[in-house]
């Protein structure tokens, strides 16, 4: 374990059902993002850049791709002596049956043996499906200085959206006095980012107590934090300023990709001091043909553009043929876009072929069109 005596646990077991077909075969944290990344690269790179070198990852839903991916701990430089990435799937244990994870708190409660073995002073609990850059060292420093039992990272959200989040009501010293999950009438706009630092000993006690409660949903937000508050434990808010996005829906995933192009957005992946690390695909640099046009776009290696790309993000190995037009669209890996095809406000899944001349999406549509094999087949039948 690293010198700060903090172990990270990333909760990466959820399905992300609002991403529909995108998470049919892979867990949400393994979904690709931003041209060359996977969503979980952000949490893992933040750990690596914050000197947190021991990271447990609780996996459950469709975990094969995710588990094999994160097991390559050298991708984030986490293969240090004593450190590493530990994949923690639900497992059969002596004296009990096969227990699946029943909530965020339960996922950690079931892995207390892993934490006991590491003997950390602090446990950093993270979500595997958020896009942000954050130095956890600063949060830990604030946590230690405030002598809190737990610190929760919060971000200011627009008041009118606050009812969509878990809201922390704080006193003037940012001590949390009340927690409200999705309050209809929010009292504050400080939303929980799902990033917690706990003193391990106290956390261990509360997790074990929570396990015994029959009507508990074993969730950090719903059960553990309220229990801390009820007992008068010191819960401190850590105010985060910067880019943070929960990419839980097709639209928010599309938006977060588009934020990479937007100059106003604070999501800067160019910073050499805080790189986001990922698996390199060993593809050559992007190439552009005679009639290519690419503007306001974010394009990665392995792509070939012969057509027009405007305000779009192209992931690794995607080709845009002559005469094709891609606008306001996110195209995932290894997609072949045929000649004269037109895409507007789409999010195109991996490995698809868009036939010549096919038109998909609508620039005025409220919702982004998630393009899967099924959508292409249906459009093919209609456009014949």
């Amino acid at each position, binding site marked *: 374990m690293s010198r700060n005596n903090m172990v990270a646990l990333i909760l990466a077991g959820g399905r992300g059902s609002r991403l529909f077909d995108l998470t049919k075969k892979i867990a949400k944290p393994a979904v690709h993002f931003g041209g060359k990344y996977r969503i979980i690269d952000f949490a893992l790179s933040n750990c690596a850049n914050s000197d947190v070198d021991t990271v447990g990852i609780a996996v459950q839903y469709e975990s094969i791709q995710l588990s094999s991916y994160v097991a390559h701990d050298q991708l984030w430089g986490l293969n240090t002596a004593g450190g590493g990435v530990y994949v923690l799937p639900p497992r059969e244990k002596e004296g009990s049956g096969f227990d699946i994870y029943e909530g965020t708190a339960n996922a950690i409660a079931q892995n207390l043996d892993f934490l006991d073995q590491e003997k950390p002073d602090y446990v950093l609990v993270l979500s595997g499906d958020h896009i942000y850059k954050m130095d956890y060292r600063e949060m830990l420093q604030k946590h230690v200085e405030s002598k809190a039992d737990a610190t929760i990272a919060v971000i200011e959200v627009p008041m009118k959206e606050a009812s969509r989040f878990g809201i922390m009501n704080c006193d003037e010293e940012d001590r949390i006095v009340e927690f409200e999950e999705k309050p209809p009438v929010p009292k504050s706009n400080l939303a929980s980012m799902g990033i917690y630092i706990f003193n391990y000993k106290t956390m261990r006690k509360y997790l074990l107590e929570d396990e015994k409660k029959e009507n508990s949903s074993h969730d950090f937000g719903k059960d553990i934090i309220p229990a801390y508050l009820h007992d008068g434990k010191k819960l401190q808010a850590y105010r985060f300023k910067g880019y943070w996005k929960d990419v839980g829906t097709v639209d928010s995933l599309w938006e977060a990709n588009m934020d990479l192009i937007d100059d106003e957005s604070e999501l800067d992946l160019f910073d050499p001091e805080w790189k986001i690390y990922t698996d390199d695909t060993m593809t*050559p640099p992007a190439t552009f*043909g005679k009639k290519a*046009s690419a503007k306001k776009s*974010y394009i990665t290696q392995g792509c070939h553009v012969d057509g027009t790309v405007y305000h779009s993000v192209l992931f690794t190995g995607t080709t845009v043929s002559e005469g094709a037009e891609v606008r306001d669209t996110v195209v995932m890996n290894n997609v072949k876009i045929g000649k004269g095809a037109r895409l507007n406000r789409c999010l195109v899944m991996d490995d698809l072929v868009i036939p010549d001349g096919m038109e998909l999406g609508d620039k005025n549509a409220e919702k982004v069109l998630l393009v899967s094999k099924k959508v292409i087949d249906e459009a093919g039948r209609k456009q014949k």
Partner: protein
Amino acid sequence: MKILGILNFEPNSVRVTGIEDYRPVSSASFLGRYRVLDFMISNLTNSGISDIELYIKDRPRSAVEHVSGTKYNFNSKKGRILMLTGEKTYTNPIYNTDLAAFEANHHFISSASADLVVLAPTHFIFTQDFQEMIKAHQESGNDVTVLYHSVNNADKRFALCNVLKIDENGRVTDLSLNTGKYKHRNVSLETYVMSYKLFLQLIERGSRTSSLYWFHDVLSDSLEDLKVGTYSHKGYVACLNNLPAFHEANLQLAKEENMAKVISPDWPIFTLTHDTCPTIYEETAQVTDSSVGNGCRIAGTVIESMIGRDCRVGKGSVIKNCVLLPGSSVGEGVYIENAVIDRYANISMQKDLRGTAEDPLYVRKSDHI
């Protein structure tokens, strides 16, 4: 069968003006994200050869940093890439020959105890499945098989490369230097397959004959008593032996149809990743017939050029027939044609820079102009 892959350094006739002030051409940045030597190392590992000795002529820093960090896709417990330099110091660089380096590292070569040796250069770009060449070598009964390419531009390129005279049986009858007098020549790709035993003998024979001898000299001496056969290479080939050739190869391979000849999913080229993000093309960007590495911000016009990783091209600038090595940047309203811009150079004050295809302009590493 145990195969030892030996990657040779470039002969003294190689002069890549500017680029080689900082590193040998084999460790220069190439095609946006690679180093020149990645291509030959990947040829070896894609051919299943993972016992590799890489010879570096001088200034090894660049190669050491790059090669030691790169995963070339072999079992790193069983295979290895051993980076070697000539151990002696030379008062005159003409003594720094490949044979002298092999001699100096005799211990490593003799302890490798392989069955076959593939000796290949690091200043060429081509794709070759060495297993196919080895198979042809074994079927032919040759003592040495030389890889060659029939070129039709030997008057412009491949200066002072070895050219072969080949008889009707495919046997080499003469090995000489290309003087540039003729268009059509059989250019040796300085790639040889031979038995390990013979390789050791040839090193010894060459070193005994002359301290100035290179491997090709001793091979030339042996054409009568050894059966030196040939294997014809098909596909893309470039010898990066001077700045125009370096410039030209980058620009040729920046075109997708050519790039696909040397890099494909079936024949990947392995290199070091720098974890740079994708490239942003701004509203004013216009990129055609070019290739662009990751981590760039492009706001200007790029025509028939190779833009390396982490480069900047400002608004209103035009980059035509240029090679921008990683980390270089061009400010706003600058016109550059036929130039090679070395790493971390910044061009913003000088608004018009032009070379020609046969005499490309070179901007030094870290220069601000």
